[in-house]
C-alpha cells in the first residue's frame, strides 16, 4: 500500500453498521489502528448498534443498550468517527472520499460496509403517511410513535424480519396482519411442514396470516394517510399502518457511481479476499458485498467473517472468504424457529427424518446424507437441539438421527451433550468460535465463568443462541480440568443456596442446626453457623414452611435466631437504633379512615412520617419497646405487616387504571391488590417488588419490577427481571395477553422457580442474567413446563397462600414473643438513652451528635442529651 509521505496510510470505512464495527475491532486486534489513520463515515445518527436485536427495543432495551460501540475503544485507537455524515462520492482516481458535510478524506484503502436497504415493492400508495420499513432504530421510533394513534397494523412479507415486525406491532397493542406472497411463512428458511407448524402457532397468538396473496395497492384516505391494503385475491384489508418487510437489497449506489463492478442483482463484486474486482484499493464487506461464491449474505455471521478477512488482507495476512453457512435461529413471541445447513435437502440422494406434531406446533426435520452425515435441518417450536445439531452438521452424529428430533420423554429421545462434539465444531457462529477455542479459554486463559469466556472469546455475544451450549461446555471443561471452584454459600456450607434448597425440600429438614450438623462443612458442624447462612437457611425454611412441616411464623422456636435483625424485630433498624414501621397498603390504595389511623398513631407516638417510593407510608423513630404498642393499634385498625424488613414481597404498585384514567384498559388497581395479597409474606432470596399499569403508558413503572404487569386490550403482559436500585434493568417480556388466571399462574411458577434456583441476595434481575439459558430457559420452564416441575411450583405457591398469617397480629397476641421488645432485659421500662430526637421541618429527626458522643469513653456518655 502506498502511504502519503510523512503520514500514516489512511483507511476509510464507509458505513458504521455491525460489520463495519467488527472490521474496526479486527483492525485493532491486528495492530493496524496504530500504524494507520482510520476514518469512519457513519450515516446513521448513532454509532454501530446491534441490529440483530433491534426488536428487543420493544421489550424494553434502549438504543443505548443496543449500542455495540464502546466509545473508549474508538478513542483509545484514535479512530476518527464521523457520526451522521455519510459518504456522498468517491473519486477512485484521486483516492478521495467526500462526505455530506463537505469533509474530504484521501485514502489508501477504502472499505465499503454500507449494508442493505429494505426493498419496498413499487405499489401505488407505498409512500403514504403510515408506511414504514424495519431496519434502523429511527424506523422503530417512527413506528412506535405512529402506532400510538393506530389500531391495526399490517406487515408486507412473512419472512424472518416480517414476523419480528408483526410481533413488535402486536406488542404495541395493534391487531396485526401478515401478508406473504409465498404459500408459507418464512419461505426461505422452512419447508411446507415447518411453515404449517409455524402458521398454527403464530395464529394461536392472535396474529392474522394471509399467505399466497400479494399486496397490490396501499389505500390512502383523504388526509393522505394509510387506511388499508388491496390484496391480489381481490380482497381489501383495513389497516392504519403498513410495514414493508419484503426483503433487502445491497446498498451499492456509491459503488456504482464510482464505476465499481456490481452484480446483476446488486452487490459490490469482490474476490475471496473481499477486495473489489475492479479496484485493489477498495474492499466491500457485509450485506453490500457480492461474495466470491456469487451470493449476497443477509446475515451477520458471514459479514463478520468478511470483516476479518478484509482486515487480515490489509495486514498482509492470508485469509479468504469463500462462503458461509446460512443457519439461523429466531425467537418470535416465544416460538423457536431454526434452520441450518442444507435445510431444504438439495443434496443428491439425501433423506429426511421428520417429527411433526402440528397440534403442539412442533416440526423438526433433519436432512441426512446417504452415509449418515447430518446435512442440515429445520426446527420449529422447539429448537433446544439447535446448537448441538448445527455443530454436528457435516459429520455423522454418534447416535441415530431420529433420536435427536423426538421430543424428550418419547422413549427414544437422546440428548447429545456438547461434550460429544469435536474440537473444531463451531459453537458460536456469530463470532465463528469453535469448541476448541472455548475450551482453550478455560484451560489456557483461566476463565472460570461464562461471562469471562464471553469476554475472552466473544462467543455468545451476538444473537445469543449459543449461550446455553456455551454454559454446558464451560462447566464440563472446568470439571474436567479439575478446577475446584468453591461455589459454597459460606464458610459453613460447601453447597450453593440452590442446593441447600433442594436438600431442605427433599429431606424435609426444618431445623437449621440439623442442616448444619448433617450437611455443613466438616469444621462447621456443631458450631453456631454465621451471619450469612443463618438468614439464608431461615429464608429457605420460611419459603418452604408448609411443605416441610416448619412453622410459617418466622419468630417461632429456632427460626427466631436465624432471622436478620430487621426480621427479628419485624421492623427496619435505623441508624440510631430506632425502628421504622411500614404497614401494608396493598396496591397503594387506602381509604381515608385508614389514613387517619396512621396519622393518629404517628402523632401519638411522635413518629416521623414519610410517603415512601413504594406507594405507602413509613413511620420512623419508634423505639423497640414501642413497636408492639404501635402494632397493636395498627392490627386493630385492620393493617398488616408490610414486610418492609423482609426479603419478601414489598409492594405491588399500581396506577389508577381503567376505573378513572381515560387511557386505562384494565383495572390495574384491583390486579395490584390481588397480587399483593397473594404473595404477601412470601420469603425469597431477595426482596420482591411488583407493579401493575393500566395501559402501556406505564405510570406504575412495572418494567422496573421483579415482576411487572401491563394491561393490554385483551389481558395482561407479564414482564420479569426488572430492577431499579444500583444497577437498573428493564424487565423482559415473559408472556403476552394473559387472562387473570393465566397471569397468576405464570407468576406463581416464576416466583417459585426463582426462589428455588436463585443465589442468596440475588434479585430476579441478576438471577435472570446469570442462569444458563437466561430468559429463554426461564420461559421454557415456567411457560412451556420443559422441566415438568410446574405442578410442583404451583402447589408450593398454593400452600404458601393457604398458610399465610400476619406475623404482627401473631406477635402482638403472644406475650412470650412480646418480652423481647424491650430496650433492656433488666430494665424493661427504661428507654435506650441513645435513641433521641431533635426537631426538623415540623417533625423530628434522630439526634445524630448524640451518636458520636456515644462513641467517647463511657463515663461522659449521656450528659445533656435530650430524651423523649
Amino acid at each position, binding site marked *: 500500500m502506498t502511504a502519503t509521505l510523512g503520514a500514516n496510510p489512511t483507511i476509510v470505512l464507509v458505513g458504521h453498521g455491525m460489520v463495519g464495527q467488527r472490521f474496526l475491532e479486527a483492525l485493532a486486534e491486528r495492530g493496524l489502528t496504530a500504524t494507520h489513520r482510520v476514518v469512519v463515515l457513519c450515516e446513521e445518527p448513532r454509532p454501530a448498534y446491534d441490529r440483530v436485536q433491534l426488536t428487543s427495543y420493544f421489550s424494553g432495551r434502549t438504543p443505548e443498550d443496543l449500542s455495540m460501540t464502546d466509545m473508549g475503544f474508538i478513542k483509545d485507537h484514535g479512530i476518527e468517527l464521523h457520526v451522521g455524515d455519510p459518504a456522498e462520492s468517491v473519486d477512485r482516481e484521486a483516492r478521495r472520499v467526500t462526505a455530506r458535510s463537505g469533509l474530504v478524506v484521501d485514502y489508501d484503502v477504502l472499505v465499503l460496509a454500507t449494508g442493505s436497504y429494505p426493498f419496498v415493492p413499487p405499489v401505488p400508495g407505498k409512500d403514504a403517511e403510515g408506511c414504514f420499513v424495519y431496519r434502523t432504530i429511527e424506523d422503530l421510533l417512527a413506528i412506535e410513535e405512529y402506532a400510538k394513534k393506530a389500531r391495526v397494523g399490517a406487515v408486507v412479507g412473512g419472512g424472518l424480519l416480517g414476523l419480528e415486525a408483526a410481533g413488535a406491532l402486536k406488542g404495541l397493542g395493534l391487531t396485526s396482519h401478515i401478508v406473504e406472497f409465498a404459500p408459507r411463512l418464512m419461505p426461505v428458511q422452512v419447508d411446507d411442514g415447518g411453515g404449517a407448524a409455524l402458521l398454527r402457532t403464530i395464529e394461536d397468538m392472535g396474529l392474522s396470516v394471509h399467505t399466497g396473496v400479494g399486496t397490490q395497492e396501499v389505500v390512502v384516505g383523504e388526509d393522505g394517510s394509510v387506511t388499508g391494503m388491496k390484496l391480489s385475491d381481490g380482497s381489501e384489508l383495513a389497516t392504519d399502518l403498513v410495514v414493508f418487510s419484503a426483503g433487502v437489497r445491497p446498498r451499492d449506489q456509491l459503488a456504482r457511481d464510482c464505476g465499481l463492478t456490481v452484480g446483476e442483482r446488486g452487490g459490490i463484486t469482490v474476490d475471496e479476499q473481499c477486495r473489489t474486482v475492479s479496484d485493489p484499493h477498495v474492499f466491500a464487506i457485509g450485506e453490500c458485498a457480492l461474495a466470491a461464491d456469487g451470493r449476497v449474505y443477509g446475515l451477520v455471521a458471514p459479514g463478520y467473517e468478511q470483516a476479518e478477512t478484509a482486515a487480515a488482507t490489509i495486514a498482509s495476512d492470508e485469509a479468504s472468504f469463500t462462503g458461509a453457512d446460512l443457519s439461523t435461529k429466531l425467537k418470535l413471541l416465544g416460538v423457536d424457529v431454526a434452520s441450518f445447513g442444507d435445510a431444504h435437502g438439495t443434496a443428491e440422494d439425501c433423506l429426511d427424518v421428520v417429527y411433526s406434531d402440528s397440534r403442539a406446533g412442533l416440526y423438526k426435520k433433519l436432512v441426512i446424507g446417504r452415509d449418515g452425515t447430518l446435512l442440515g435441518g429445520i426446527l420449529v417450536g422447539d429448537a433446544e437441539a439447535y446448537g448441538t445439531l448445527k455443530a454436528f452438521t457435516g459429520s455423522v452424529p454418534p447416535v441415530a438421527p431420529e433420536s435427536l428430533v423426538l421430543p424428550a420423554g418419547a422413549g427414544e429421545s437422546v440428548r447429545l451433550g456438547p461434550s460429544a462434539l469435536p474440537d473444531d465444531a463451531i459453537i458460536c457462529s456469530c463470532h465463528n468460535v469453535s469448541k476448541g477455542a472455548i475450551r482453550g479459554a478455560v484451560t489456557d486463559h483461566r476463565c472460570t465463568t461464562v461471562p469471562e469466556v464471553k469476554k475472552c472469546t466473544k462467543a455468545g455475544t451476538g444473537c445469543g443462541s449459543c449461550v446455553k451450549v456455551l454454559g454446558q461446555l464451560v462447566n464440563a471443561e472446568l470439571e474436567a480440568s479439575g478446577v475446584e471452584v468453591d461455589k459454597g454459600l459460606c*464458610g*459453613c456450607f460447601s453447597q450453593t443456596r440452590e442446593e441447600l434448597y433442594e436438600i431442605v425440600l427433599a429431606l424435609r429438614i426444618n431445623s437449621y*442446626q440439623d442442616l448444619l450438623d448433617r450437611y455443613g462443612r466438616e*469444621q*462447621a458442624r456443631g*458450631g*453456631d*453457623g*454465621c*451471619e450469612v447462612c*443463618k*438468614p439464608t437457611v431461615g429464608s429457605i425454611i420460611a419459603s418452604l414452611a408448609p411443605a416441610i412441616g416448619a412453622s410459617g411464623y418466622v419468630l417461632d422456636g*429456632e427460626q*427466631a*435466631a*436465624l432471622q*436478620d*435483625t*430487621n426480621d*427479628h*424485630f419485624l421492623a427496619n*433498624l435505623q*441508624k*440510631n*437504633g430506632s425502628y421504622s414501621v411500614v404497614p401494608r397498603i396493598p396496591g397503594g390504595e387506602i381509604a381515608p379512615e385508614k389514613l387517619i389511623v396512621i396519622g393518629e398513631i404517628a402523632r401519638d407516638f411522635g413518629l416521623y412520617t414519610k410517603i415512601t417510593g413504594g406507594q405507602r407510608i413509613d413511620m420512623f423513630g419508634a423505639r423497640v419497646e414501642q413497636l408492639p404498642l404501635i402494632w397493636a393499634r395498627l392490627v386493630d385498625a385492620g393493617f398488616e405487616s408490610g414486610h418492609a424488613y423482609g426479603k419478601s414481597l414489598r409492594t405491588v404498585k399500581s396506577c389508577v387504571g381503567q376505573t378513572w384514567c381515560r387511557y386505562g384498559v384494565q383495572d390495574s388497581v384491583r390486579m395490584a391488590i390481588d397480587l399483593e395479597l397473594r404473595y404477601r409474606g412470601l420469603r425469597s432470596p431477595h426482596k420482591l417488588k411488583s407493579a401493575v399499569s393500566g395501559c402501556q403508558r406505564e405510570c406504575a413503572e412495572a418494567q422496573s419490577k421483579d415482576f411487572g404487569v401491563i394491561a393490554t386490550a385483551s389481558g395482561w403482559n407479564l414482564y420479569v427481571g426488572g430492577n431499579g436500585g444500583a444497577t437498573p434493568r428493564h424487565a423482559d417480556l415473559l408472556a403476552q395477553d394473559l387472562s387473570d388466571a393465566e397471569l397468576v399462574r405464570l407468576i406463581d411458577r416464576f416466583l417459585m422457580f426463582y426462589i428455588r434456583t436463585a443465589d442468596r441476595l440475588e434479585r430476579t434481575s441478576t438471577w435472570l442474567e446469570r442462569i444458563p439459558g437466561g430468559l429463554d430457559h426461564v420461559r421454557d420452564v415456567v411457560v412451556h413446563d420443559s422441566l415438568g416441575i410446574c405442578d410442583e411450583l404451583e402447589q408450593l405457591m398454593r400452600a404458601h397462600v393457604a398458610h399465610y398469617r400476619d406475623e404482627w397480629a401473631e406477635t402482638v397476641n403472644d406475650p412470650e414473643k412480646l*418480652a*423481647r421488645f424491650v*430496650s*433492656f*432485659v*433488666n*430494665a424493661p421500662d*427504661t428507654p*435506650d*438513652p*441513645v435513641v433521641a430526637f431533635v426537631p426538623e421541618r415540623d417533625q423530628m429527626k434522630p439526634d445524630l451528635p*448524640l*451518636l*458520636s*458522643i*456515644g*462513641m467517647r469513653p*463511657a*463515663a461522659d*456518655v*449521656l450528659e445533656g442529651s435530650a430524651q423523649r
Partner: protein
Amino acid sequence: MTLAPETTDLKVELALDGDWFAVCDLSMLLPGRGVAALLPDGRQAAIFRDRSGELFAVDNRDPFTGAAVLSRGLTGTHQGRPFVASPLLKQRFDLMSGQCLDDETVRVTAYEARAA
C-alpha cells in the same frame, strides 16, 4: 438435641469490678440471639448465649455507628470462636475478646459472664 443446661432458676451474671452483677433469668436468652442490659453506671452490655449454652457479653455500643445495637446482631462461629455481626454495618466482633474481626484497630469491652 440440646446441650443447654437446665434453665430454671439460673441467673445470668456479669463480672463488674470484681463483683457478679445479676442481669436476668437464663431462660430469657434464646440460643443464637442476644439481649441488652443496662449496667449500674449507665453503660450497656450485649449478652449472648450460644447453642452449647455458653454465655458471652460485650459492650452494646457499636463503635462504628454509635448506636447501642450489638445485642441485636446475628451470631456465629469463626475459626472456632464465637462472634456477633453488627446489625447496622455488619462488622464482626469476637465475643470472647471484643476484638473487631474486620478492623484490627477496633475493640469493644468484653465482660465475663456466667449462669449461676
